[in-house]
């Protein structure tokens, strides 16, 4: 450590100040204020003093079917997408690291381009691909004989959810693949060779040696990605507006609509607070049970 705060307080303050201002006013304050607002009847449509209403907003939410639907949908979509993305990302990383070593950087770069495509474009594309009459997916499905007539996937409850999942997964695989690849590369070849000599077959090597060693890294990446997905709203907003019948109503969209379409800041804050608590609980569970602390290199 180079400095002690006591000895150079002005320097420290100067360094922290810009970030502290931004975070303080635009992140910390809004969170606290939001929690506060959830106990009031705040709305930009109504001028005048805020009235304290206790848990009214929360009870309203918990009686509202759409709310439950959005929590459930979000959990389902995020969970499945994350799981798929981590598995596929890991598999591709395995492939690259052990099978196609030489071209790994090239593949990695190519795949990473996927991340660059703005959500808005993915949305447009997805809308087109899953289109009933002319979409690519429908064409593939009828051409290979999987279905007989064209399906309006976006109009089907389960179908719409899987479209979301496909979008999220697709976007996330490159990210998780890069992380997994880095993790794999950090395992020394000697250890792999030692396990070969010890008699471990390919699957055993993966299960007993590789996965335990990169598991922490993957868990953290998974958590980060899931948290990101929770915020994602573009795809549902444009493609399905939360439908059909609230099948793709996700928490982010729900909260946003409450806040900026219904202009009910109080209720939206309540929804946001529930969201926050939910995330904290999930993160705690993942970190507590998914990460092994005793892993020392």
């Amino acid at each position, binding site marked *: 450590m180079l400095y002690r705060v006591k000895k150079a307080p002005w320097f420290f303050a100067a360094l922290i100040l810009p970030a502290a201002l931004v975070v303080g006013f635009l992140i910390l304050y809004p969170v606290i204020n939001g929690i506060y607002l959830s106990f009031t009847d705040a709305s930009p449509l109504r001028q005048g003093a805020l009235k304290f209403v206790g848990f009214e907003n929360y009870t309203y939410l918990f009686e509202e079917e759409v709310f439950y639907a959005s929590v459930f949908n979000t959990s389902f979509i995020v969970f499945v997408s994350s799981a798929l993305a981590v598995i596929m990302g890991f598999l591709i990383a395995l492939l690259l690291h052990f099978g196609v070593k030489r071209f790994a950087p090239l593949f990695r770069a190519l795949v990473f381009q996927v991340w660059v495509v703005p959500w808005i474009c993915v949305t447009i594309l997805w809308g087109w691909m899953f289109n009933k009459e002319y979409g690519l997916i429908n064409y593939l499905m009828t051409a290979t004989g999987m279905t007989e007539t064209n399906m309006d996937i976006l109009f089907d409850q389960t179908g719409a959810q899987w479209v979301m999942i496909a979008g999220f997964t697709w976007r996330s695989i490159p990210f998780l693949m890069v992380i997994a690849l880095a993790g794999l590369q950090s395992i*020394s070849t*000697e*250890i792999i*060779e*030692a*396990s*070969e*000599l*010890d*008699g*471990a*077959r390919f699957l*055993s090597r993966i299960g*007993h*040696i590789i996965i*335990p*060693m990169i598991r922490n890294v993957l868990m953290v990446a998974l958590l980060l990605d899931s948290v990101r997905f929770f915020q994602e709203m573009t795809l549902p907003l444009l493609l399905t507006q939360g439908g059909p019948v609230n099948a793709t109503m996700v928490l982010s969209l729900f909260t946003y609509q409450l806040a900026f379409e219904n202009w009910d800041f109080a209720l939206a804050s309540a929804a946001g607070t529930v969201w926050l608590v939910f995330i904290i609980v999930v993160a705690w569970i993942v970190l507590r049970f998914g990460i*092994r602390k*005793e*892993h*020392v*290199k």
Partner: protein
Amino acid sequence: MAAITLTNLFKSFGPVEVLKDINLSIADKEFCVLVGPSGCGKSTLLRMIAGLEEVQAGTIEIGGETVNDMRPRDRNLAMVFQGYALYPHKTVKENLSFSLKMHKYKKDEIETRVQKVAETLGLDVLLGRRPGQLSGGQRQRVAMGRAMVRDPSVFLFDEPLSNLDAKLRVQMRTEIRDLHQRIGATSVYVTHDQIEAMTMADRIVIMNNGVIEQVGPPLELFDNPANVFVATFLGAPSINLLEGKVVSDGEKLGVRLVDGSFISVPDIKSPLEDTSVLMGVRPHHLVVDPENGPIQATVKVVEPTGVETFVFSEFKGQEIACQVVRQAAPKQKDKIRLSPTKEGILLFDKTSGERVI
């Protein structure tokens, strides 16, 4: 029976030929040390025996069976890696039992074996720890334990002591040697340290640039090196090499050095007359001869090691080393006269490096 036979082995990495026509027989239960400078191919050779490197030409036989096509795990050998390669997320006990688990041993069998090996190596108190919590020496022992637990017919060592400090290295040398006596499995040990080679081997295989220079018991290689490379590689301080020419002083043949002095050498055959040679004399064969010593040198550095003292002096622009008892040590800048003992003279052909006498 676990003798190893290597026949006509070749290996290249791309355009670079790493091993050229290697032929070697290692007897059952022998402790064979592959030694040589970096890049000589010794590690590659070891890994080929293990099955971690592909054999491009030639055959490898273990216990009479050709194993070229066998996967590493089927070859019934165990290897101690340079970096130990312990599984960081597993306890010592799990590290030791892993290979047994992979070979589907029964639980109680695993238990007994692991216990036995742990006791032998003094690891029984450490069974619950993870590698990250162990010292270098302890990790080394776990690595060996992991190899021992399977009771393989062949042990392979890839520079296992190079990550340890000097004192620990000396201690582990004897431990490994001791273990070998007790277990009696064929061992192939790779190192770049010639002291390790000398002290541990039943036979030494000196390699250089992908070929085997010489094979034999340590002392034989020391006393009768086949060429300049072997002579300089073994022994510290290294052997003194003096340029000269084989001439006659009228009666006998001997070597005339660059300063004109003549040293008679017994047993030179006449065809050798007029050849340029390098005369090799080990430091302990170079004695101080104040009256008649043909080699006149000036002392530069005196290194006392507690028992013997090494004296480095300058002779015609070249540094030569000799060994004296500590009481007789000269001082810096003294002029001394040295003379090689009769048995200590080795002659090497200057161009080919091959030994002639």
